[in-house]
């Protein structure tokens, strides 16, 4: 299983862009990168998933360099409601992906007014 390393916490202000970087040096060829968001007392919520280059959806963008040893979750113009824990997960193989994902400690993002 690919181990991930994320900052423990980050602070930002409303309206700023926030970039959270995750290191996964031993990512395997068939691993995907997935980010989840978790609010207090709730289950994690899927944000975005990618394999290489850049993926964008209505919530965030995910940047993955060519060597895939890291990835960056970008949240544009954050608001107070984006205060949450963000998890970076790396999973093995399309067929095995669902059962191989491991959650680390995540990054606590605090957005201030």
């Amino acid at each position, binding site marked *: 299983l690919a181990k991930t390393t994320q900052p423990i916490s980050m602070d930002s202000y409303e309206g700023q862009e926030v970039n959270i970087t995750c290191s996964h040096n031993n990512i395997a060829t068939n691993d995907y990168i997935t980010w989840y968001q978790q609010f207090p007392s709730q*289950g994690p919520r899927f944000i975005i998933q990618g394999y290489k280059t850049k993926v964008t959806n209505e919530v965030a963008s995910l940047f993955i360099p060519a060597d895939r040893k890291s990835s960056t979750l970008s949240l544009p113009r954050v608001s107070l409601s984006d205060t949450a824990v963000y998890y970076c997960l790396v999973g093995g193989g*399309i*067929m095995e*992906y*669902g*059962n191989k994902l491991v959650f680390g400690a995540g990054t606590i993002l605090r957005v201030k007014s």
Partner: protein
Amino acid sequence: NAGVTQTPKFRILKIGQSMTLQCAQDMNHNYMYWYRQDPGMGLKLIYYSVGAGITDKGEVPNGYNVSRSTTEDFPLRLELAAPSQTSVYFCASSYSGTGLKYFGPGTRLTVL
């Protein structure tokens, strides 16, 4: 679509008691999972299932049992509750072959 539902929301057990945490999903997902989350920590996988009748252990299976008789339901059984099992338990489901998981609201369990 109710998504993933869990019952109960809260429960207090005495040491040695047993209980079953219920989980159901109405999205016809093949994969279902049970995680536990201790305060300030990430989620740890307890058990998972890739389809009805098929289950396997995750990272922390000791003290728990599961069964999967239908696609929709995936109950988690605690046989002899211990204080170390005090945690929040999340059930999740996903469509086969993708990493996108849908999580339930969680069950907060306290063992005294």
